């Protein structure tokens, strides 16, 4: 498996960046007494030469043990990741499914009716999510659905109804991407030889569309899905902040801002494994989806 060494490279580079970045996890508004700082440096091995520290870090990472968070004392990194992943994953996957449904439908439809009002209608709607930033969309949704129609709670995790607004917010932007990529991909495929052949064989439009065109046409969407889904699982900061959800995204940003090294490395390692795993799946699915791709 290539994934593990790749993740180690990512962890190494990230570790280097953390060490170059100014500030450290224990710096705060008030200066610490010198002796306490010395205790900290000793406790976390910061007074050792860098290669020893690196060696210690990487051997722990290989064993899958990232240690304790430096900021949130007494909590292990693994525990934090596994505790908050379900929140991010629930919202992320639901949002992506919704985005796929809207995006594929709008994109395919627009491609079939290219340059008619039926093309621009769904596309305009899809692009709304792209043109309105989610930090603007989210409060507007809250004002509308929580304080005017009183349909959904304005924030916090709790029950399915609390998921509706975050999922819509998050799906909006991805739906726009998917719709546009689908439209372009479908147009590209619809004019290619094998579709012509299929049509020449007298297959119906729908058969051609779903049995042949669709598989090739959504390739760009598939390329996009790998990293997008990984990023979604790792959490989305804006949505988590606005809706006060305990997802991984906000935790990660805070970890970076707090220079919480073990937590940063843990999430980065987790994210890089996800990205590579998903990209691998994407690459494999290329072969299934598009008969033109052959791996030598």
């Amino acid at each position, binding site marked *: 498996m290539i994934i593990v060494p790749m993740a180690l490279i990512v962890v190494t580079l990230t570790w280097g960046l953390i060490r170059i970045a100014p500030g450290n996890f224990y710096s705060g508004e008030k*200066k610490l007494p010198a002796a306490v700082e010395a205790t900290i440096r000793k406790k976390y091995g910061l007074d050792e030469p860098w290669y020893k520290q690196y060696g210690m870090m990487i051997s722990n990472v290989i064993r899958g043990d990232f240690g304790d968070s430096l900021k*949130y004392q007494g909590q292990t990194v693994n525990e934090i990741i596994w505790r908050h992943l379900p929140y991010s994953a629930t919202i992320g996957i639901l949002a992506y499914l919704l985005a796929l449904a809207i995006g594929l439908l709008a994109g395919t439809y627009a491609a079939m009716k290219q340059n008619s009002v039926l093309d621009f209608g769904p596309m305009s709607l899809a692009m709304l999510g792209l043109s309105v930033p989610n930090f603007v969309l989210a409060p507007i949704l809250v004002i509308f659905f929580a*304080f005017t129609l009183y349909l959904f709670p304005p924030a916090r995790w709790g029950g399915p109804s609390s998921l509706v607004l975050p999922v819509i917010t998050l799906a909006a932007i991805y739906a726009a991407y998917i719709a546009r990529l689908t439209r372009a991909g479908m147009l590209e495929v619809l004019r290619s030889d094998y579709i012509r052949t299929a049509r020449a064989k007298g297959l119906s439009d729908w058969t051609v569309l779903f049995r042949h065109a669709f598989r090739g046409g959504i390739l760009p969407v598939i390329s996009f899905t790998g990293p997008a889904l990984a990023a979604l699982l790792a959490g989305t900061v804006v949505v988590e902040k606005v809706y006060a959800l305990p997802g991984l995204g906000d935790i990660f940003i805070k970890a970076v801002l707090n220079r919480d090294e073990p937590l940063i490395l843990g999430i980065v390692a987790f994210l890089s494994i996800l990205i590579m795993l998903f990209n691998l799946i994407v690459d494999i699915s290329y072969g299934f989806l598009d008969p033109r791709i052959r791996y030598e």
Partner: protein
Amino acid sequence: MMERQGYSRVIVGISALLIAALAFGCASRPSGQFFGKTEPPANNTLRYVSGSEPETLDPQISDGQPEARIYMAIYEGLVECDPKDQQPIPAIAKSWEASPNLDEFVFHLRDNAKWSDGKPITARDFVYSMRRGFSPETISRTAQLGFFIKYAEAFKSGFVFVKKNGEFLLEKDFGGVEKDSQRIGPETEFSKFLHSPARVTIDGDEKKRNKALAADPKLAEAVKGAELVPVTAEDIGVEAIDDLTLRISLRQGAPFYIGLFANQFFRLVPAQSIEKNGKNWTRPQNIVTNGPFRVKEYRPYDVLSLEKDPNYWDAANVHLDGIEFYPIEELSTIMNLYKAGSIDAMLNHAVPSSWIGEMRGYKDEYLNFPEMSTAYYAMNVTKPPFDDIRIRRAFSLGLDREALSSFRKVTKPLYYMSPTGVFHDYDKAMAKVSEEKRAEKGVSPEEWAKNIKFDPEQARKLLTDAGFPVAKNGDTYSCPTFPTDKVTLTFNTNENNRSIAEFVQSQWKQNMGITVPLKTMEFKTFLPFFKGLEYSGFSQLLWSGDYVDPYSFLSLEYGKANEGGSGFYDPKFDKMLDDANSELDMQKRYEMVARAEFYLMDQVPVIPLTVNATNWIKKPYVKGMYPNPGTLIPWKFVYFEKDPAKWDKDVANIFTTPDPKFDKQLEDLKSTQQAVAK
């Protein structure tokens, strides 16, 4: 044709969305008497937004305010702060006495105080807690507050005593001033040790010690060949005289010290759980607490759920059945939850600045009171051009603070180091000293006021004198020689900081023709840049007092390694403060402190900007919760009033409006100490 339709639809779509949002946004303007849904929760559980996720539930580690409020619910110390004025009131100590020169305290503990696991609380628990807190092994960011306690600093810093020929070296033989110390309570072996002349302590780390000794040949000579005895936990000035009597000895008198014992650092930690579980003691299954509430459920980043602790000694007077702390930082989200009636109150400064105007309209909810917290711009006095006092004064005089405060809406202008309007007796002392100074100079009161306040003409003159001539062109000024490419105004990223900086920048541009470039930095990048004096020009400094005394602010510029961030150090100022702190008469001491403050401000190490003000809202049915100067809430006083007729009205008078239920509870609690004081 069709395409155009498509296009116009798009525009119509966006406009419709924005207009809809606008319409609904406007519809949320003050209409009812209360802001949003206002209904006491049926389960008698307070829902409070506490700000950032608590770092840990160990009260001795973190210095954050969000944590402090949580610790107040689950831990108690010797004293608690008065919900209204933050002065110390009895907690586990039912009463206390102080030695005449305020350097030793004896606390009498209650005999019915218990841990949440039912174990009785004794004086030894306090000794354990303090020894643990001062141990170099405990990474505490608040331990410095306790360094007045005898040998606490030496222990925390890993220092050693020096023993030569069977005798310890003494401070008084090496230039130290032996403070007159008086014992209170019975004499014990330990008290004899504490009241014997102070011993010399030196760094336990050899390298650092040699460096320090190099500067002191007499001590170096004495240390040669001597035995080094580490300062241990047993040496610090905390003693359990018996199960229910605790004695704390300070290295010098500190009139403000009793109030400090309400700080989170001095709250009890459970020996029984720490010894058994180590670093895991704060986990919900291991944690043992001693406050009015105990941990029921903890879901980090979501909710910390507390329930009333039946083992708490004063459980009969705890009104709420529980508290839910929500860690939320996004201000508009907090406001939304409040409006939806999903929370009852929130942390200080939670009302976004653009909402303040609207919130003021809700007179039964919006809390705007003086706060023990200030904002300054520190100037790096070690780097030109700000090593020149004229330049520093020019920038201070060139800023219209009245305008800044009216722009900021809730703050008050600040001209000194300590906040005005918070320490009432001290304000009197300041006024008296100010009058003295004016008489000394023989200037009119108007001119004297101008001297420290806004005076752009004088500012321009000072700049010109310092070699940066200010030219007048029409209505505007210019100062082409001032090195604006070398200085910045640096602040850590925050919307309020940015908005203050932009305002100040434009003031200086208008009044002096100097555009100081702004630089915003992420907090951890900002810290070393600011504290390490890497900046040149201005850096924003925000400070909240740790205890109700101006010393909490003046100590910012005290000593060589101070927290003021200006690189300012003046032994004369330090001496003035030291002398003031050994003065026993309170008002006289304040006058001495005030003189030190005037002396400090004459050298302009900082540009004071504003005294902050509390800025939060609570539902009118939440009673017993007061916007004191630190917004520190003793939770056992808080209760829900079901009867709308008794809800808070016009909270501008919240401190003076009687609340029989609350007043009686506070009176009863204070009575045990008042009996002793009489």
